[in-house]
Each structure stands twice: as C-alpha cells, then as structure tokens.
C-alpha cells in the first residue's frame, strides 16, 4: 500500500494548532478532550474541535468535488486506511465543512406532508383512541 499523500490546506498562511509530529501522534487526544468538554460542559469554539480540523483539511479537490470520508482522498481516511485504524467520528459527524454540505430540499414538501398527516390523524382521532 502506498504511503498516503497528506492534503495540505491550500491557504498556506494557515497554521495547525500544534506541530505536525505532535498532531500526527496525538490528534485524537486533543479531539477527545475537546469532545467531552463540549458535550458535557458546553465549551465551544476551542481550536481543538473536530470541526476545526475539518474546516482546514477538507477542501474540494481539483475537480471542485469534496472527497467523502469513504474515499482515500479524504484527509482523515487517507492515513486511517493506511494505518488500518477505524474512525468512528463520521458515522455521526459531518465529514466536510458546513458550506460544502449539500442537503436535499425537502422543507416545502415536508411541510405539506406534515399538514396532511395532521389532517388525517385529526379526522381519524376518534377511531383510534381509547
């Protein structure tokens, strides 16, 4: 397996929070610490947050597309696949910055659907209740 090419942020003025060596070895400790602080103590916006990593390191490729977490072009997956270490983060967390998240437009159709459900359940309310 070829050694992964690690994606450097295009904006070269950006500096990582710690030297590369440190981050390569211990990035999970920073993320884990930040995770528990955010989850339980509500501390937000610290530089060690996962979304911060993603903001710098996940950028569209030359074709303008973001490589998703399942791709080995994805910054995290490139190394993790190489090192055969499973990442659990992205089963829940977004694998790209918010501005690149494409969501289906469902609001209006959803609205209608809910209205219908409500109307239907109201008319049938008598029948199903004890």
């Amino acid at each position, binding site marked *: 397996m070829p050694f992964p090419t690690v994606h450097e942020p295009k904006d070269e003025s950006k500096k990582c929070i710690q030297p590369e060596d440190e981050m390569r070895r211990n990035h999970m400790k920073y993320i884990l610490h930040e*995770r528990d*602080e955010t*989850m*339980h*103590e*509500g*501390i*937000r*916006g*610290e530089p060690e947050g996962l*979304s911060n990593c993603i903001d710098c390191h996940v950028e569209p490729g030359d074709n303008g597309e973001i490589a998703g977490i399942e791709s080995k072009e994805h910054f995290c997956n490139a190394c993790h696949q190489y090192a055969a270490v499973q990442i659990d983060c992205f*089963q*829940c*967390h*977004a694998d790209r*910055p*918010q501005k690149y*998240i*494409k*969501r*289906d437009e*469902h*609001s209006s159709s*959803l*609205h209608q*659907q*809910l*209205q219908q*459900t*409500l*109307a239907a*359940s*109201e008319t049938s*309310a008598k029948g199903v209740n004890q």
Partner: protein
Amino acid sequence: MKKSENTTDTTATNASRRDFLAKAAVVGTVTIAPGVLLHQAARAATAEVEVEVVEVIELDAEPDKNTSRSTRPLDQEVSDKNRWGMLIDTNKCARGCTSCVDACNEANGLEGKTGPQDTQYIRKVTLKSKSTGHETSLPLMCQHCESAPCVDVCPTGASFIRADGIALVDRHICIGCRYCMMACPYKARSFVHEDIKNQKLSAPRGKGTVEACNLCVTRVDHGGLPACVEACTAENHNAMIFGDLKDPNSPISIELRKYGGKQLRSDLALNTGVRYQGLNE
C-alpha cells in the same frame, strides 16, 4: 411587540440568523411603542436581510418575551446558575400549523419523514377532551426533566442532564440499548434505524444511537433561541417562550409566576423544564 416575518432563505446560517434577529429587534423597538394603536406596515431593507413588520392591532402590544438568552462566554463551562426551559401556551398554538416542526427538522438536519422508524424531535399533538370535547393542539418534545427517567436508566451515563438543565444524549458513549426510550414518559426519543449521510455540522447524529430534542443546545449556547421557538415567533403565533427558569426576572419566570404552567405527567414529579398553559379539560 415585535411582529416580523423572515423573508430570507430558511437555510440561512446561524450567523446570519443572529444578524437578522439583532436587526429585527432594532426595527421593532423603533417602530412600535407599547400601548399605541398601529396600522402600518414598515419595511426595513438591509444589505443582508429584508424585514417586514406586519400590521399590529393589539392595544397593548406585548414586549418580546424571548429576551432571556445565554450570555455565558463559550470558553466557560455551563453552570447550574441557569436552567433553560420553555413555556408553551396551547391557546396560541395554531392547529394545523407545523412551523415549529419544520424549523426543528431544518435546524437538526432531520429528513422529516414520519414513518414508525423515523426520528421526530418535536411533533404536533392534537388533543380532544373526552369530557368536554374541547380541542387543543400543542407541540410535544423532550420535556428536559430535572429528575429524568432516561438519565436514571441509562447504563453508560450517555443520557445526562447538563448543568443548565438541558437533557442530552452523549452519543459517543450511547450503546443503543433503547432503555431510555422505554423509560421516557413522553415518547420523546427516537432511535436512528439506518445510516445517515449529510448531517448538519452543528447536529451530528448516526445509526444505532438514540437521539432527541436537545433544546437546540448549540444555538442556545451561542445566545440564540431553539429553532422551534424562533419559528413560532416568526409565524406570529408566539405560543412558545424560551428562557432561564432560574432567573426570576426572565419573561418565562414572570409569566409562570403570574399564570402558572402545567407539567405533563406531573404525577411523576419529574420537574420538567417545559411547561404548558391552557391545558384545561
């Protein structure tokens, strides 16, 4: 009273929502003074958002009741000095209106499907009194109990109440046993039955774990309102008030002190953070 309609794209980011709110508040204060009969529509165009102040006909225009917000600097941990809660006036909740549900789905990246396996953080419930025939509608979501049964039963401690009263699921340590769903008296929780893609950055969620209304904790921490409350206010229904239950001067506390508010399943003595008014049989 601020009567405003958000005509911006509903997918606006949190940042621009906050901008919008700030500007709307300014417009509201300038245009409307309490106790004055107003028949006018003021339009205020700004560079980013367009704010329309629609006709206001009440004699005693109410002040904005959603002024109680988090002012905690984000680098300090939450404390039990605050307890965030909600007061819902079912008389103001319009039947057939699902703005709160839509806003919740949008804010949390839910697909809004309503199958038996699909997640719903908030739902509109229609009630009809068996004895009087009186009909009511209300939004129902996690009640953010002080003594929450979900927290009691959770084997790993993934279900917890944050110091400021918000019930959360730490999905990093949730093993998906669903005991909390068995224990919740309000059926407030959902289990994620399949893989999820395109989560919102601010609303992570994934297969095999349990989730529920988190009072839009990220928005609240940033000094904002839960999406449902914001939507209800924007819709001009004003059925939902958000605020600090421990601050005696917060509009929600004043309102509760004046008129009271019912806890659902109050027999269980859970001290819920969400209270209801107008639930009279």
